[in-house]
């Protein structure tokens, strides 16, 4: 096994203390196919880390490694300072997990699942399970296999929160849920966050919901972590710039007006240019607006979803050269 390096986002203090969850240069392979490669990040205590990526980006494989369910081909997954593979049993007593696919035995009822889990967690709070199931309207004595997908997710969230875990790992928990169920799920999760300030690692496609929750975000693209940043900083440095290009007597060509920015996505529209830049700077934008031939330039903040699309998504139409002709 290779010696992985510690992620760089942690403060020196966090690096030496037991961070709840950490990936060190993890590579996961299935035969010759690489699910994720050399991925490193860490989630500091109290942080809500959103691990984003398109389908097949390697999120679930990474989560399985982090939970000690799967051994990475190289690198190391760590939970509370210990190797996830070797110290899984001890570490998971402090971790609540909601998987991508509701995996509880279909014949078990929510009540039986709670009875089973009660024996495994010393801090198990049966009352909290009952209250949550009641709140969700989940019948406790109906077999898990007969519950709706939303109810299954709610049951598993209730189980994950019932022992006041120090870390929550939610692997795309709202996948396939309707809007109401999604909302109920996130509300419950937010309630727990507000109460206890739990550390969380969430993978999800529900970016709108996570936007107000996540404090840090990582983006996996084709198995590689291409972005790992605080949400506030991320949102501060990304902007959409829209403008029109005009020929003037002194300006004979296009294409260099965005040179001051790091444009991650530039699209030519009928009305002009639509660009997303990742190094927003007010002063630079002011200079841009003053440029000869740039007309009607305006900048707007991006949602997390827009940033994700700009970073991880494929362009909707062929991307023009920087500053392509209007």
């Amino acid at each position, binding site marked *: 096994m290779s010696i992985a390096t510690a992620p760089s986002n942690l403060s020196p203090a966090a690096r030496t203390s037991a961070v709840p969850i950490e990936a060190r240069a993890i590579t996961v392979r299935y035969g010759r196919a690489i699910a994720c490669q050399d991925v490193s990040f860490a989630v500091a205590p109290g942080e809500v880390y959103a691990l984003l990526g398109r389908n097949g980006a390697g999120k679930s494989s990474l989560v399985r490694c982090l939970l*000690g369910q*799967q*051994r990475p081909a190289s690198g190391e997954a760590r939970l509370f300072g210990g190797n996830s593979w070797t110290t899984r*049993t001890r570490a998971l007593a402090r*971790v609540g*997990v909601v998987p991508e696919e509701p*995996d509880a*035995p279909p014949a078990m009822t929510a009540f039986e699942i709670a009875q*089973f889990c009660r024996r*495994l967690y010393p801090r198990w709070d049966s009352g909290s399970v009952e209250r949550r199931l009641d709140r969700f309207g989940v019948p406790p004595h109906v077999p898990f296999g007969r519950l709706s997908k939303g109810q299954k997710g709610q049951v598993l969230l209730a189980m994950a929160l019932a022992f006041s875990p120090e870390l929550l790992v939610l692997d795309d928990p709202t996948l396939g849920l309707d809007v109401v169920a999604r909302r109920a799920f996130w509300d419950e999760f937010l309630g727990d966050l507000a109460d206890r300030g739990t550390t969380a690692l969430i993978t999800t496609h529900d970016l709108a919901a996570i936007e107000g929750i996540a404090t840090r975000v990582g983006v996996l693209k084709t198995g590689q972590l291409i972005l790992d940043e605080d949400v506030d900083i991320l949102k501060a440095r990304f902007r959409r710039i829209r403008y029109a290009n005009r020929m003037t007597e002194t300006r004979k060509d296009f294409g260099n007006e965005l040179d001051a920015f790091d444009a991650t996505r530039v699209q030519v529209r009928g009305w002009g240019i639509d660009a997303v830049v990742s190094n927003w700077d007010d002063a630079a934008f002011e200079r841009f607006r003053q440029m000869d031939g740039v007309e009607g330039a305006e900048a707007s903040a991006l949602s997390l979803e827009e940033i994700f699309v700009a970073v991880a998504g494929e362009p909707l139409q062929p991307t023009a050269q920087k500053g392509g002709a209007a």
Partner: protein
Amino acid sequence: MSGFLAVTRRELSEKRFVLFAAAAAGLFPLAIPIVARLRGAGAGESRGFAAVILAATVAGGLAIALGSSVLSGEIATRRIGFFFSRPVSAGALWAGKLSAAMLLVIAALAIALAPSMIVNRSLSPLGDLFPTGPAASCAIGLGFFLLVLLLSNAAGIAIRSRSPLLAADVLVLALVALAFWSMGMRLQRFAVVPGTIYWLLVVVLAPLLLAALLIAAHRATAKGRTDLREAHRALSTSLWLILGVSTVACAAWSAWVLAAPPASVKDLYARSLGTQGWVVLSGRTRGLEANYLYDSMTGRFERISNESWRTAISGDGRTAAWVEAPSQVGPWTVKTLRLDAANARPVETRIDFSRQPSSLVLSPQGDQIAALENGILSVTELSTGRSRGSARVSDRRYPATPFFAAPDVVRVLRQNPGRQGTPDVQLEILEFRISTRKVTVTGTSETLRGPVFVQVGAAGERIVVREKAGLRITLRDGRTAARLATLRESPSPVASWPFFLSDGRPVLALNSAGSGALEIFSTGGASERRIVLPERGALRPGREIAAGVLTVSLFSPLGSGRTAPALYLVDTNAGTSRRVANGLMPVVDPWTLQTSILPGTEASRLFLSTEDARISLVRFDPTTGRRTTVLGPQP
């Protein structure tokens, strides 16, 4: 521990419905006596028998179903993640799931048996089915169902993974099975393997296989977790490693046992084969019975099959032949060894028998072999395997013994039944002439009081026949069975042993009430001399160290306080005897039909020493008293 208990409890709770099926199955045997209109003991037995069959079927089926779905099915559907995302160790998960499955199998078995046991009010109809007793049978049964469960579990993981490793699994399994089969066959062939060894193998190998499967299943759970292919890899490598090490260990043990030299043999028994120093050695070495062809003069030896008592030697003493079979069902192949060539190795001939031959004799020159198999006498050329002829000479129910009376003639002594319901026989003599392939009955005796014991002279021209316990001993013509002389007739049984000297004179070794004695007769059967030994006891005559001078060991009767035999040197010409050694027994086979060992050869000086706790083979010169240990502990 909490994880293990939680998993076990959950598994039992989830699959408890199978017990209702077992209960329903248990009621079925109760209907059998009603349908078959049986009453009393017959009803109980039929109920018990049906219950055992049904319960075993239910339990076996359950073991297969649970074994193939537990763990492997959950890994395949990723439902195992439910447990692995909780603080449950892989060990607890593995132990909990398999324990619950086994408990369900046991419970299903008990529930299916219970109604019949209750109605029969006894375990006996069921217990009678088990030769090893109820406790041992229960242990064997549970071990069997656990084995089925674990094998199904391993197969479930291997098959569900759809990995190319499955082909390697099958290959390794086949190789291990082949290795064990080959080992078993070789052991069976070259060592008398007592039943205890097989029992030991069951006791050792079955738990070893169980342990291997348990360890492999645990490693598959611990290493594979949610990855079925990784689980399969862990399972296979564990199984291969344990089975490989076990196979190598067993192969090493088997090779060690089979490589045992004659010097390691304890409790040895030997019988000489010819005029030279070749003997057939039998005894216990490295825990098993072994047989060797051993040359006392050079120390050369060859391990031979368990059919050592059929080892034949040619009249010229240059060729030995015996049969070997790859398994108990044959075929039996004749193997030969040139005894006069220093570096000769055993040669497998082209002569096969589908059944084990009851007799095997070589021609005087060792170029032909006569075998009696299932009442059919066949003569075959040793070098080419070409048949020289065969004929039915006996019903296999009646004993028949062939010997070469001449290079072209095989004579057969056949004991036909005499009076109905008695052991009395008629001795019939047949000749098979090889050149004409004709069988002729050359003579038949009157009805003899059986059982009879026959010795044939060196040339085969005369025979001595001892009737029932020595009541009558007669000298007869070797071709016609006509009585030439009555050597002894007494109203009461006498322990006696008839044999021929090298010059053709018949001798009776007698253990009469007063003392042991040798009665020597002329070639025509006239009494010549009686030599009385100073002690009582059973006599075993040895070889002649010179013409008419032979050794005789005398075994004291039970309760005499002396266990080692006394060796006497008897001069039949001078009529004298003297005690020359203690604890020595001639290396002869008194049951050999025809003795043709020349006086004064190495064979006449070979004895088994029984003085020590361990028996040794010694060379002893009775005239000088010089003694050398050939094999075994030095005195």
